[in-house]
Each structure stands twice: as structure tokens, then as C-alpha cells.
């Protein structure tokens, strides 16, 4: 079942998954909102590391730039601006929690079994593009130019909408 060869790549994969999973778990279980954002940033960084392992450097560093950098800072910024009292913890419901734990374990078992028992096609030796940043750019402006432009329009609409909404609040 565990036919894994121990290489540097595997070690890095393990470290990044540990960062991502612990970041995600802490994000849900911590009490203070700022701590949550920090652990979420850790999960984003782990994800960026995964992209590096997959030889997608461009996506990896855009991930760091946009998510770990800009989004996290904006969230912290928003949180600091607002007053937040530490909410009291919800009362413990033993039956509910036990059922949730059993359900989660079952789901995990199911997924794990399904993944391990699937016969994946023999992976072709992966040949990354010589310069995958350039490859992404060329694809974006040739084959995918219309989806790309539509996305830009969508973002502009969202942007203008946000300004209009904020203006209405201010008046």
C-alpha cells in the first residue's frame, strides 16, 4: 500500500503538506481572528511550495504575491479596523461532536481507500515547458484570449460595484 520512495522531493512534499494541513486546521480551531489569518497565510505558503515542486514557478510566486501577501494583509487590515470582542465559546455538545468525528473518520477512510485502490495511469515523464511563464503568456493571449478578456471585464465590474456600494454606505 505504501510504495513510496524516499527522496528529497518526498521530504519537501511532506513538509509542505504538514504546513498546509496544520495551517488549515489552526485556521478553524484558533480563537483570535488575527491568528486565524496568519495560519491561513501559512497554508497559502505551503500551497506555493507545492506549486514549486510541480515546476510551476510562475503560479507559485503569484500565489505568494496575491494570497499570502496581498489578501492576508488586506484581511488583517480589515480586522484591525474593526472592534472584535472575543466571543465566548459555544457549549460543548458531546453527542454532536462524537457523531461529527465518526462521520469525518468515515469520509477520510473512504477517500483514502478510494485513492489508494485506484490504478493511476503510468505517469509520463513530465516535460515542463522550457520557460513556462512564457508558455502561459502565449496561451493566454492566443488560445484563451476571450476567456481572459471576459475575466478582466468581470473583475472591472466587481471593482466598480464595490466602489458604488462603498459610496452608498458613506453618503
Amino acid at each position: 500500500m505504501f510504495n513510496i520512495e524516499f527522496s528529497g522531493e518526498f521530504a519537501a512534499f511532506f513538509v509542505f503538506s504538514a504546513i498546509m494541513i496544520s495551517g488549515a486546521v489552526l485556521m478553524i480551531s484558533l480563537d483570535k481572528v488575527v491568528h486565524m489569518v496568519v495560519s491561513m497565510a501559512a497554508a497559502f505558503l505551503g500551497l506555493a511550495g507545492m506549486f514549486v515542486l510541480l515546476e510551476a514557478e510562475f503560479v507559485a510566486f503569484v500565489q505568494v504575491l496575491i494570497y499570502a501577501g496581498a489578501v492576508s494583509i488586506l484581511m488583517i487590515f480589515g480586522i484591525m479596523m474593526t472592534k472584535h470582542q472575543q466571543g465566548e465559546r459555544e457549549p460543548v455538545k458531546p453527542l454532536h461532536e462524537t457523531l461529527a468525528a465518526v462521520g469525518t473518520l468515515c469520509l477520510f477512510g473512504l477517500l483514502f481507500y478510494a485513492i489508494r485502490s485506484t490504478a493511476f495511469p503510468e505517469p509520463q515523464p513530465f516535460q515542463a515547458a522550457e520557460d513556462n511563464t512564457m508558455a502561459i503568456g502565449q496561451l493566454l493571449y492566443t488560445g484563451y484570449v476571450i476567456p481572459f478578456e471576459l475575466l478582466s471585464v468581470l473583475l472591472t465590474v466587481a471593482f466598480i460595484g464595490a466602489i458604488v456600494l462603498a459610496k452608498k454606505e458613506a453618503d
Partner: protein
Amino acid sequence: MPPWLNESLTWGNALVLFLWAVVFLFIVLGFVTYAIYFERKVIGWMQQRVGPNRVGPLGLFQTVADIFKLLIKEDTIPSKADRLLFIIAPALAYIPAFSVLAVLPYTQNLYFADLNVGLLYYVALSGISTLGIVLGGWASNNKYALLGGMRSAAQMISYEVPLVISVVGVILLSGSLNLRDIVAAQDGGWFWNWNFLPQIIGFVVFVIAAVSELNRTPFDLPEAESELVAGYHVEYSGFRFAFFMLSEYVYVYAIAALTTVLFLGGWHAPVPFLDFVPGIVWFLLKFAFIVFFLFWIRATFPRIRVDQLMGLGWKVLLPVSLLNIFLTAAYLELFIKR
């Protein structure tokens, strides 16, 4: 460096690379020590003062003594502070500052990493430092620190946008995000082949945005002494405070090297008949000039007001840098068909 980078990673190679990183760390620490000394000296001279001259000959050991003082100081953590974040914030500010240095090429053969998205790597990681600063300000649980942290976040986010957009022109001209290729694309023999003349708009925007990213005068609002005591690091002392200062000066190093690489032709000589001088000398000369330029600005400019700061970033620098991209693209399309 290059032969080691392309070999497979064995324990021996890992050790060699690690030792190189340690050597480099000490070089950077040496730079920071004497950058602080020269900053104080140069600003002193410009303001008709003497500058530090007590410790050692010509005051050369002043910074060493200051650092020693910082390290033996009592390390205080305010009791109301968020302990965990207070401790990790300086590390979070410093680690990206040192990591971005990895992609900077010094000469044809002296570089530490050959990354095809080098420029993006630099920009992405330097954003993480802001996170450290904001968290440091928030975790101190002090209103001045919080204000400093907030200002810093607002400023660094607003100026990162024009900074990134202003270098797009350089990327268009050289057709690569790899910093080594960017330098190689500026090789024409003469200094007008360097990017700072063809990309003069981008260069000006880049320098202004870079000074602002560094939180230095005239954009030093996050740590404006007269308004905020010291800004985000007001509650920090000793070792942790030293880390914040250190990351600030490591970014001075990084920005000076990046400007040299992007706009001043890296290791290329300004005129062809000076080619016999080794590239590292040219690199260091340009680098030293940028560092001096930063000190010079600091000695001569007053601080900008906080409302003008945001206006300058979003209403002036951003449109100008967008215009620069448009002009560069139009030029490449009309005159240099590829």
C-alpha cells in the same frame, strides 16, 4: 556558483550551498553595519555636523558598539502583548528580506540562484515582510505601534502596485523575468543601452516607489519619530528590535542591487573601452551610488503628509506606470517587430 547549482543535491553539495549562504549572510551583515555608519556620517556631513567619531578610529566601530548594546539589552515583552505573534513578527519581517537576495546576480558567473521568475520571486517575497511589520504593530497592543503598522500596511500595499507595474516595461524590453537575462539584454557596450534611458518613466516611478517601499524619508511615515514615537516597533527592544532594523537595511541592499540589475545594466561597463575592468567592480560602483543616493534623499527631503502619500501613489504613480507600459508596448509593436 553555477556548477553547484546544476548538480543533483547530495549531502556534500547541500553543505557547500549552506556554507555559501552563511558566508553571504556575514557579507550582508557587514554591509548593514557599515551602511548604518556611512548613513550617519554622510547625513552628518550634509548637515554640517561631524557624525559618529568617538568609538574607534573615525568612529568606525560605532555601529558595532550599537549592535553589541542591542544584543545585551534586556529583552522585554509587554504583558498585554500577544506573546506568540510578538515573537514571530521580527522573524517574519527578516526571513523574506534575506531570501529575496538569492535571485540577485552580481556578475556573469557570480549568482546564487538562476530562477526563471526571479523578478516575481523578489516582489512576492518582499510583500511578506509587510505582514511581519503589521503583525508586530498589532501584537504590541500599543496605539502608536498599531498606527505605525497600519500606515505601513497601507503604504507598502499602495506602492507595491506602481513598483511592480513600472518594471513591466523592463520585462517587455528584455522578454524575460529572469534577472540574469534582463542584465544580458542590456548589453550593448554603451551606457545608453541600459534600461534607465529607454525606460526613463519606469525608472523614475520605480525609484520613487522603491524609496516608499523601504519606508525611508520622504516616505517614512510608518516610523515618523515626531508623530508616532517610533511606529510599529515602539514596544520592541534588544534582539527583536535589531531584527526589524536589520530587515530594513537588508532591503536597502536588495533594492540597490535590484535597481542596478534592472535599470543600470548590472555588471556591464558604461563605455566599451572600459571593458577590461571586471564586472563586479562596475556592479559595486553602481550599487554604492544607489545606496548613497538613498542617504542623500534622506538628508535633504522633508517628510510627505499622510494624505498626500496615498494620493501620490494611486493618482500619480499608478497612471504614469500604466502609461509607461502602453508606450513601451506600442514602441515594441511599431518599431521592433518580433
